[in-house]
């Protein structure tokens, strides 16, 4: 079961060769053990058996019988959704997010809500009053963030599983890298954000994590697509990603025709030499398989970090204003006028990082500062997008390391100042800001800890980057 690709399992589940109901007890037990060992969930579903029973009526679906974990900032109807924050500690959504609706419709079974940094504010999944997930490679280390729980469960689940996660500045790529799994961040707008608890609306993207590229591609097929409830949702038809990977099996020349760029700014100082080296190994492997690379320069990368954070915090500070102890979320006794009451509830309900970002974000929008901070950052975004577009007119994909460091120890993280923590995002913020799709695949170990290869593509080129990722994954497997 562990190494079986989802596609084969699904087929057997539908035709009855595998009885999904018989798996339930084992899965529930395993999930409990995983939770005790790694603490990667905030809430476990308590109706798994019922969900599986309901499956019997349909006997079909692209995810039939697959257990799916959902990052806790994505709404699940009737199942507590906290976004990793005390201020939503007891919140139960009255509706399912579109991606959850789609997964259920295709026979997926929601197994639980995975741990995350509060509202997505973090790179190490430590900024939360709930469980802090432990890295499967070394429990004293971080799983990465903010989709830390999703990365963790994707690595350790011994049952058919795939994870719905979310990225604003790198929150899928980072945990995928740190946990040694595959993480796909689609093009902005490819997956509907209806039901996603906002961090930064122009940057948030729902995506997929899993143990192999094929599984991730399968989930993407299910959750992608136009949604009339999300104004930013793209109308471009969803491609058959799994089929695209089969094409690579049949004819690897598809990938061999690809041209790959390597932006030098992603290997600059600040990136651990050993990581750079491992990633260069991967690039060379691809070269030896017939995929040539060319070193390029993307100078605007240098400004991506401040631009990203200013925009993200500005939007976040407005998104978090709704949490004020009235219609849902944490409330206190109604005392004082509304300024006093709101201020008190918010001070109690938000963690430190959330407060910092609300304050900086509010500051960045204030009269007198708005032009110099927020509007400037939006201009940098345009320059960055133009730069990527230019690069993608020449290259099918760009390759880089996913993260500049190995998964750090929790005690090291505690010593970081906020500015130092933000700097860890230097490799992921640029593509996230530009809304381009990206996939992180494991490319080796350093000191027993995983390193990720980041494959970036042009807008709506999920098919291409998945094909390249799949090819690389296959080549690596063969070499081992």
């Amino acid at each position, binding site marked *: 079961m562990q190494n079986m690709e989802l596609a084969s399992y699904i087929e057997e589940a539908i035709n009855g060769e595998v009885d999904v109901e018989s798996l339930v007890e084992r899965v529930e037990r395993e999930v409990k053990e995983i939770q005790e060992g790694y603490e990667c969930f905030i809430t476990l579903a308590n109706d798994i058996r019922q969900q599986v029973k309901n499956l019997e009526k349909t006997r079909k679906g692209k995810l039939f019988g697959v257990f799916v974990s959902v990052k806790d900032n*994505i*709404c699940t109807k009737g199942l507590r*959704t906290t*976004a990793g924050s005390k201020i*939503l500690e007891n*919140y139960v*959504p*009255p*509706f399912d*997010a579109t991606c959850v609706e789609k997964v259920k419709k295709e026979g997926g079974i929601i197994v639980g809500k995975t741990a995350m940094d509060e509202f997505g504010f973090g790179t190490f999944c430590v900024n939360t009053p709930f469980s802090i997930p432990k890295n499967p490679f070394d429990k004293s280390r971080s799983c990465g963030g903010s989709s830390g729980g999703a990365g963790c469960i994707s690595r350790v689940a011994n049952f058919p599983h795939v994870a719905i996660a979310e990225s604003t500045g790198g929150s899928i790529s980072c945990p995928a890298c740190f946990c040694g799994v595959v993480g796909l961040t689609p093009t902005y707008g490819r997956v509907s*954000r*209806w*039901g*996603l*608890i*906002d961090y*930064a*609306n*122009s940057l948030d993207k729902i995506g997929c994590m899993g143990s192999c590229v094929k599984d991730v591609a399968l989930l993407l097929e299910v959750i992608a697509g136009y949604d*009339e*409830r*999300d*104004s*930013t949702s793209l109308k471009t038809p969803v491609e058959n990603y799994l089929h695209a990977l089969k094409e690579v099996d049949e004819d690897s020349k598809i990938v061999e025709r690809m041209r790959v760029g390597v932006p030098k700014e992603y290997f600059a100082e600040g990136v651990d030499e050993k990581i750079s080296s491992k990633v260069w190994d991967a690039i060379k492997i691809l070269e030896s398989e017939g995929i040539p690379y060319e070193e390029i320069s993307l100078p605007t990368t240098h400004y991506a970090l401040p631009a990203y954070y200013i925009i993200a915090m*500005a*939007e976040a*500070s*407005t998104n978090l*204003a*709704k949490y*004020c102890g*009235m*219609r*849902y979320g944490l409330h206190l006794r*109604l005392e004082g*006028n*509304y*300024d006093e009451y*709101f201020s008190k509830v918010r001070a109690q309900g938000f963690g430190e990082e959330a407060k910092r970002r609300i304050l900086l974000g*509010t500051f960045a*929008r*204030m*009269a007198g500062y*708005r032009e110099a901070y*927020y509007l400037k950052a939006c201009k940098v975004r345009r320059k960055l997008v133009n730069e990527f577009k230019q690069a993608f007119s020449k290259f099918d994909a760009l390759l880089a390391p996913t993260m500049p460091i190995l998964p750090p120890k929790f005690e090291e993280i505690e010593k970081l100042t906020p500015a130092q923590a933000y700097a860890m995002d230097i490799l992921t913020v640029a593509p996230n800001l530009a809304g381009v799709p990206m996939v992180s695949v494991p490319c080796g170990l350093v000191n027993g800890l995983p390193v990720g290869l980041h494959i970036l593509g042009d807008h709506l080129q999920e098919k291409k980057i998945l094909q390249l990722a799949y090819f690389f994954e296959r080549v690596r497997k063969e070499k081992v």
Partner: protein
Amino acid sequence: MSVKIGLEIHVQLNTKTKLFCRCPTKETEAPNEHTCPVCLGFPGSKPMLNKKAVEYAIMVARALNCKVNRTFIFSRKNYFYPDLPKNFQITQYEFPLAVDGFVDVNGKRIRIKRVHLEEDPGRLIHVGGDITTANYVLVDYNRSGIPLVEIVTEPDFESGKEAREFLQELSTMLEYIGVFDKEREGSMRVDANVSVEGGERVEIKNISGFADVEKALNYEILRQRMILKGGGKVGRETRHFDEKTKVTHVLRRKEFEEDYGYIPEPDLVVYSLDEAELKEIFARLPELPSQRVRRIVSRYSIPENLARVIVYKEKALADFFEECCKYFEDYVEIAKWVATDLLKCLNWHGISVKETKITPQGFVEMLKMIKNGEITARLGKEIIKQYVSTGKHPRKILEEMGIERIEESKLREICEEVLRENEKAANDYKNGRKEALQFLIGIVLKKTKGSADPKSAAKVLREMLES
């Protein structure tokens, strides 16, 4: 001291659904009945723009002679308030729908600075007092998310009266365009900016109703004038108009001014219409009230004051009038009756002509009966009253009154009877007290149940008395 007044008017558009969600906008008794995760700002909800609201707003902008921007976006205006579900309002800041228009009212041109779309917040009830003394608030979010068109004027008004007249013109105009229900409570709310020469600008927030606007402005102008005359200063401040006491007072709440920190709304996109689409929307604009007055005057040759009364009462009345004109050629007569007696009845009942069962044909039938002498004008007034309240056809009403046409001989008979029974009055008349005739006419009318024509009765009585 010269006065400058500018208005910010918020008008609720009567689309079927709210601006960003499919909740109905129609009125309901049950609080929070017409809500959903979007208009209640629940986590994970997202707005989706109502195209009809955009079309309505463009029609309004066009009627106000504005330049409509083909491309526009929405913005977040960030502030905290219990009636605001997201603690920001989706409105338009940079790149609004329309700018630079004007309206002519009683010969004066009022310039319109901008017209834009935004969402209405919920409705607050202060429990245990008023806004300054309540213990807590109750909120009904049925109103939250209803589309508002905000119309901002330049400070071109010089008196409360001018402001009121403008609002009346605007209100009728909007009703004619068909995007506004003026009977609905709170469908038009006004903020006013007032400055008197020598003082700074004072903002008065949230005034409902034209009469109140005029009162609030008059009070405020007086208040400011008195301060300045007394050597004091009028500084920039925000005041609230108290409907009950009809005065303005300061809402002193915070030491800081809200910083709206606008950003373009990142859950919405760029909206762009091409020339053809805009033209099509403009073409939907119906005849505006001022245009209709001119046309009615010219087409039916009726006095302008009558035309104005008919047109500005409500569109339905003007429609009724014109429909009547299809069945009867004495347009002036129709106009008179519609603008006086019919209007009086409608006002007394507090209803629109649409809500009665009267028809143009029925109404005209009655006018014809008066014209050919079948009934008197006086009886006609009586019949109108019943027609409006019951909807029964005038002929039927006449029948039920049991009134027949009085023949000349029958009239003479009744007059003789009246003179016999009222000797004293008859003698008074003969002795020179001419007013006694009125008394006698009255009795004749009573006996004939109003079906006698007072003029004919007078003629016959006089003849008899003087013979």
